[in-house]
């Protein structure tokens, strides 16, 4: 959710239940400006909030020239002091998947430990440990990979491969906003290359360079509704419960926010 649109866009996603308190909102408005100048970001977004047992993490994301690759995430416990999250590597993802379990505790230096005893005669215990900060970074990365949403046409890919905001994006129409094919994941495309050529011929290459939401498995993992007296199109993810995307049709306003436990919903196949 773009920082400049924060005052009014929080009302659009409030239908999911979690809102920011007034104190948090005012603190964000002040501190994010400072963060933007310090880190020299072109655009700064309020990414969301992960609820922990003792404290909550507020996450912001700064974008550089290329929106897809120049992304840096920061976290804070009180919306005032922001710390940079470590960039995610494959090794970190593996560590987190082995060791981290259960809810986020709320303490960034908490260490999760998982002991695996090897019974091959050595009888040594291998201990996998990871800090909560790394778990937070990996969770933010996963949510962006699997559940980030942008409407079709909001970003364009230039000839050099740079992904930038489309300044002449007028918004999807009401009928277009009802179809899941007009919303895309904001990540390096995975299923794009597998499309047959006659389908690709109808695309505009500058706009259609991202994966479409209707290709997500399992089908039905996105809930599309019109809220706020049917004016705003709201997409909720069932895979990551708490991710809400909003778009006001016929205007360029759109954005997504995650307010939730930070855990993937493994019960999704049973829920559908």
């Amino acid at each position, binding site marked *: 959710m773009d920082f400049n649109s924060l005052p009014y866009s929080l009302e659009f996603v409030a239908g999911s*239940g979690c809102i920011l308190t007034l104190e948090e909102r005012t603190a964000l408005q002040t501190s994010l400006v400072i963060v933007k100048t310090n880190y020299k970001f072109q655009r700064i977004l309020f990414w969301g909030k992960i609820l922990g*047992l003792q404290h909550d993490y507020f996450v912001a994301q700064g974008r550089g020239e290329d929106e897809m690759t120049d992304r840096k995430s920061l976290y804070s416990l009180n919306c005032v002091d922001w710390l940079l999250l470590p960039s995610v590597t494959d090794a970190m993802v593996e560590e987190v998947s082995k060791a981290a379990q259960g809810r986020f505790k709320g303490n960034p230096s908490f260490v999760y430990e998982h002991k695996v005893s090897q019974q091959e005669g050595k009888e040594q215990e291998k201990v996998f440990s990871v800090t909560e900060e790394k778990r937070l970074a990996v969770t933010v990365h996963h949510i962006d990979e699997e559940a980030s949403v942008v409407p079709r046409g909001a970003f364009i890919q230039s000839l050099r491969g740079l992904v930038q905001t489309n300044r002449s994006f007028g918004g999807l129409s009401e009928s277009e906003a009802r179809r899941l094919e007009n919303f895309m994941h904001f990540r390096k495309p995975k299923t794009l290359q597998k499309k047959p050529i006659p389908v690709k011929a109808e695309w505009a290459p500058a706009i259609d360079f991202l994966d479409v939401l209707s290709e997500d498995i399992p089908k039905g993992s996105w*809930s599309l509704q019109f809220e706020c007296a049917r004016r705003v199109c709201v997409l909720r993810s069932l895979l990551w419960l708490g991710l809400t995307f909003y778009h006001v049709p016929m205007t360029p306003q759109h954005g997504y926010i995650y307010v939730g436990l930070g855990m993937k919903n493994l019960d999704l196949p049973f829920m559908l």
Partner: protein
Amino acid sequence: MQRSGRDCGEMQRLDADGTGARQAASFKAFLQKSSSRSDRNLYDHLVLLLAKIMDERPDDAVDVLEDMSLELKRASFKDTQRSLRDHVTPSVGERLAEQQLLLFKHAQDFNHEDPTVETGFPNVNESAFYLEQAGVGLGREEMQRILLALKLLVESHGLPQCRLWGKILGTESSYIIAEAEYTEGDEEQSTDEDLQEEEEEESGTQENETDPVPRSTYLHPPMVPKEALGTGANRFFYFVCNEPGLPWVKLPSVSPAQITAARHICKGFTGRLDSPVLSYPPFPGKEANYLRAQIARISAGTQVSPSGFYQTVEEEGEEEEEMAHDQCLVNPEFEGVSSLEMAQSLSSWVHHIQHILKQGRCTWVNTAMKVEEDSIEEEEAAEKDEQADEPEPEYGPPLLTNLSQDAEMFHTPPWSLRLSSTITPQHAVAVLRSNLWPGAFAYSNGKRFENIYVGWGLKYTGQGYSPCVPPPPQKEYPSGPEVTEMLDPSVEEEEEMRMALEEQQEVQQELEEDEEDEN
């Protein structure tokens, strides 16, 4: 185009003069000459034709050129008399807007209403203000619409009091839920009677056959009876709507079978009350029943209040201390606890809704006694009773137990408690968040408290939900000595038996001969 000889000559003379531009200009003027038979000219027609081709980009354009040209000429005929008017279908947003307009109208007898009399609907805006400090809410405009919708609900159904229970999100649309106290005038048409009637019909058809089929000795496990309206899990009843402004629908009361089934499944809501709930173990009912069962579970698990706000009903001559109270009254002497105290320890909060037992009810019922009354063949039933053990009564925690007694599940504490603000703790409220039912919140600022649920209606399952295993296959027959299989004896064994028998006979014969000899 036929050129007259005179024109041809003019053209040649122009060539000789030089400028191609004048050539083009004169040719263009020729094209723009209107024809004598119709109002068109060639220049405009060619422009339109090329524009149409550019827009439509037909396949094999060169072959369909003449057809397109004819079509253009035909289409230019304008019908000035239009007898058909445009039929405008209102979009979904417009229809909802018309329905929501009713929210803003005054009630018809507004003039007779006394604004100072306490009305049944709550001050949702005040709650929304405090809930916003707690970090939960639906947005100020939506809360305002909900307030007006609750006002309509109270007026149309004549409810003495109602409360906003919360919102449950669904895949196609969400539910906004209002809770109302049960009053004595409400009667409900129970739909569970249909299920019982079906069972009786099935057993009835078996008796009518000419060749009686052997009656199975299987007795259904006795159904746990529903709790009476106004007590236990059915203490309140609930109204739902999809959007504020749409009509409120009353949910049916909940039965223990539905609660036990809901405990074993993990199913999302679609937003339509009549959609089926397909799951294993099968859920007895539709989404309306499932929604009601989840509401009952969430209320029993997460509705809390500051300790001291409610007090138990004191009955005279209470002999059994184990009797569970199911009602509690507002304590008129409650002075309020400061929010700092409330935020420090869980023992300053208590549950004020009865816990639901494993049976699915709040008060335990001995189902074994029912079997004697209902069954037709009393002898068999009596025998069964002697064999079966008496079921043990189930006890739950009594009403108004404080939250520090709640059990920890999946290595997470069941509640998270904090102050809403660390910078200004003097004006902060105490916020309680449930970890078992993510989405259940409660706040207290000393005198005032409120509970709300905004979420997906599912319990926290830890590592992930694993469905029940189906029961093991039943034995076909009871095992006994006449039914068990035995191996046929082999030839050697038969030989041995025969030898042993012969020896025995010989020994007996010798004994008899000896006796005869003696005699």
